[in-house]
């Protein structure tokens, strides 16, 4: 299978690369707090995202307690329950996953992996973080506002999101929620411009597009999508704010609320849904594509084998990114939109399954004839494949328009999206943190705690969400504060709910152990050295670990693709990207 290595094209000279001006901090404040260094900003983004993520974790416990043991906890009343699910969903999707993948990993890895000193617009990058923090604070403020946070569900569908039947609808909750989203989007746009332009213009010498690690491909494509999709959420938020505050009727038709005629008239709730899902579906891939990219690199590095079908992987990322803009209405099959749209959107949705499936095949084929080191990042990558395949396949149920009809708005949907865009990407985040923590801090995370964390999280999460599909098959609707006595729900289903709740508590507790490990290992972890995984990509070749401001003494020059693992004839089983010449290669039949 080893192809002949061509020798066309100009060899890269050792000439010094033109350097860029670098921002230099002058005080502790500008070095660590108002820092313009992408690595510091990445850690700030990640810490904030994990902190707010812990809030979401506690909220999920509270809602699971209510579902598993209805009525046993008096302080969880219906209003609070809906506030908990809304905030849990919103935090996880936007403030944790999007922020952590793009703001966290994007900031840390893009400049390092591409051999740049920093992002191209460091000042905007700093502003991006501070706007994100402000958005998080506004979100948190809604917990303390009169009436509490909004309980409209994370989809915020009008009219109920702005009416009094919903917690926070006529109070501050919804206003703060929408304001927070608007701030987040403005902040993200500043960061997103950085990620895109850095990939376009900041690559070091020899780093062609087809020599970029798939992590960068994933984050880059996701950022381009996010830049084009978030405006839809922005528009929807602004219009809903107008409806709520100024009394306009963008989304509000004539309404009789509790016997009282409201002033609104003529608006279209479906219009909001189109705008929301025009953002909302790409959002799924905004989270998934970085995960795809990162997991490809984890598997390749820890199986000591080049990623199988690199070109196909790149094309698949680009194709998925483009297609994801024309599938949004598969979230709206039973929304009352023109039913004939169903034909188009079902077809596009199932077409997108093909490039996605190819990515899965290529991951498992990378394992084939590899040299698999069962390190923690590898374990998380394997767990990702299991949960992603499971969640992706149930997506074929929901994407196929008729099958969606009985299943939509049931627990099946909840189980599906938690598996595919909750559990799967979060497993990648964990794997990535175990993988790159040594580069960020210079020390390894504790292995024993890591093993406990992995097994409880993976098996526990699977046991939570796999059986949950069957609650949906029974017909149990989602977003029910309590099922009550319902003829078609057997008593055994309630037992299953109790089991799920207990598992959720256990899995949640394991995350506290992980958090402890993160903090403990900063001081007590084993010294890692510069390249503990013997990886090829540039971030492991920095002169110092952790990398200093500016990353490199002299900018690296790239001579090869990022997956030169176990090259036949080479002394080591990896060749770093910046190692010149074809030394070590014994291309069979090459002249």
């Amino acid at each position: 299978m080893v192809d002949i290595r061509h020798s066309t094209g100009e060899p890269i000279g050792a000439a010094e690369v033109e350097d860029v001006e670098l921002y230099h901090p002058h005080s502790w404040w500008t070095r660590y707090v108002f820092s313009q260094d992408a690595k510091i900003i990445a850690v700030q983004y990640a810490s904030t995202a994990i902190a707010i993520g812990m809030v979401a974790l506690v909220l999920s416990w509270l809602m699971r307690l209510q579902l598993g043991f209805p009525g046993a906890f008096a302080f969880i009343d219906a209003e609070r329950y809906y506030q908990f699910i809304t905030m849990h969903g919103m935090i996880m999707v936007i403030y944790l996953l999007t922020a952590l993948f793009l703001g966290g990993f994007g900031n840390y890895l893009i400049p390092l992996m591409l051999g740049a000193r920093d992002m191209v617009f460091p000042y905007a990058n700093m502003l991006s973080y501070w706007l994100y923090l402000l958005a998080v604070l506004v979100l948190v403020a809604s917990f303390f506002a009169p009436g509490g946070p909004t309980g409209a569900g994370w989809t915020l569908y009008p009219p109920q999101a702005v009416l009094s039947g919903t917690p926070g609808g006529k109070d501050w909750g919804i206003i703060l929620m929408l304001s927070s989203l608007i701030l987040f989007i403005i902040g993200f746009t500043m960061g997103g411009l950085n990620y895109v332009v850095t990939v376009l213009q900041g690559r070091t010498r020899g780093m062609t597009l087809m020599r970029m690690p798939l992590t960068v491909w994933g984050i880059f494509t996701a950022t381009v999508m996010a830049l084009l999709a978030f405006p839809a959420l922005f528009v929807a938020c602004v219009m809903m704010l107008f409806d709520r505050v100024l009394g306009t009727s963008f989304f509000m038709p004539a309404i009789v609320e509790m016997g009282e005629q409201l002033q609104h008239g003529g608006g279209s709730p479906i219009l909001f849904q189109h705008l929301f899902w025009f953002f909302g579906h790409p959002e799924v891939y905004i989270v998934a594509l970085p995960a795809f990219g990162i997991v490809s690199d984890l598997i390749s590095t820890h199986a000591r084998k080049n990623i199988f079908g690199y070109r196909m992987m790149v094309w698949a990322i680009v194709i998925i990114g483009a297609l994801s803009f024309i599938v949004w209405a598969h979230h709206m099959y039973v929304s009352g939109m023109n039913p004939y749209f169903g034909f188009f959107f079902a077809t596009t949705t199932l077409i997108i399954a093909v490039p996605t499936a190819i990515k899965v095949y290529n991951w498992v084929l990378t394992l084939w004839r590899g040299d698999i080191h069962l390190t923690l990042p590898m374990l998380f990558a394997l767990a990702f494949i299991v949960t992603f395949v499971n969640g992706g396949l149930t997506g074929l149920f929901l994407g196929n328009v008729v099958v969606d009809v009985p299943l939509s708005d049931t627990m099946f949907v909840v189980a599906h999206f938690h598996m595919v865009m909750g559990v799967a990407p979060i497993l990648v985040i964990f794997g990535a943190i175990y993988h790159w923590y040594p580069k960020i801090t210079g020390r390894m995370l504790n292995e024993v705690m890591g093993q406990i964390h992995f097994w409880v999280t993976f098996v526990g999460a699977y046991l939570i969400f796999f059986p949950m599909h069957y609650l949906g098959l029974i017909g149990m609707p989602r977003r029910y504060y309590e099922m009550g006595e319902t003829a078609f729900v057997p008593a055994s289903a309630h037992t299953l709910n109790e089991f799920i709740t207990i598992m959720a508590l256990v899995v949640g507790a394991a995350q506290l152990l992980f958090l402890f490990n993160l903090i403990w290992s900063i001081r007590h972890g084993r010294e890692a050295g510069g390249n503990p995984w013997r990886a090829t990509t540039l971030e492991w070749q920095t002169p110092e670990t952790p990398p200093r401001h500016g990353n490199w003494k002299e900018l690296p020059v790239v001579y090869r693709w990022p997956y030169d693992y176990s090259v036949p004839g080479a002394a080591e089983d990896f060749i770093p990207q910046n190692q010149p010449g074809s030394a070590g290669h014994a291309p069979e039949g090459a002249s």
Partner: protein
Amino acid sequence: MNVTLILLAVILTIAGWWLSRQRLFSKPWLEVGHAFDPRPDGRPSIPPAKIGLGVFLAVVAALFSLFISAYFMRMASTDWWSTPMPKVLWLNTAILGLGSLLLHAARVTAERHRDEASRTALIAALAAGLAFLAGQVFAWRELTDAGFLIADNPANSFFYMISGMHGLHILGGLFALTRVIVRTRAGPMDERAVLSITLCATYWHFMLAVWLVLFALFSGWANDFVELCRQLLT
């Protein structure tokens, strides 16, 4: 969502054209030690700030196209009465166009090292921008005085919201322009100054184009055009 989808198709075509020149079909594992880098000397020929502005304008275009999509979708309902356009909007349009011309002049003069002329043009452009915003506020006042309030009718709501959003973008541009004026106040105009002015000018031309589309939309000409397209399609 048709408007947005058309815009996306355009953006994706540009992205696809660019990607097609990046040798996506090459086999990178065969190319050890060689750079097939389309960038001369491995460094970008276009300054990052220009690319950054281009990407940002694509985002802004997506934003306004979504507003316009929403406008068309909401227009289909029966409670829609077009808002009359105050006459002053014509004047505002002219002022915005003048600002665009002035910035273009500032750029050309800066490139030819006629620094004083360039500085004057920049300040004049700033004044034009402020005058445009004042004119827009005046137009709003005129409409509210005539009884066209924001919540009365969706056409009014859209007019205030979208023109307000455009105004905010102009305001942001004015901040950037002020920064450029302050920074180029003293000393000769170097390459960086020319770049900053060019960026301001590009932004201004773009916001002018957006305003022309919006003005056509609010006046109802865009509807006739869309209607024509629909008839041609069916």
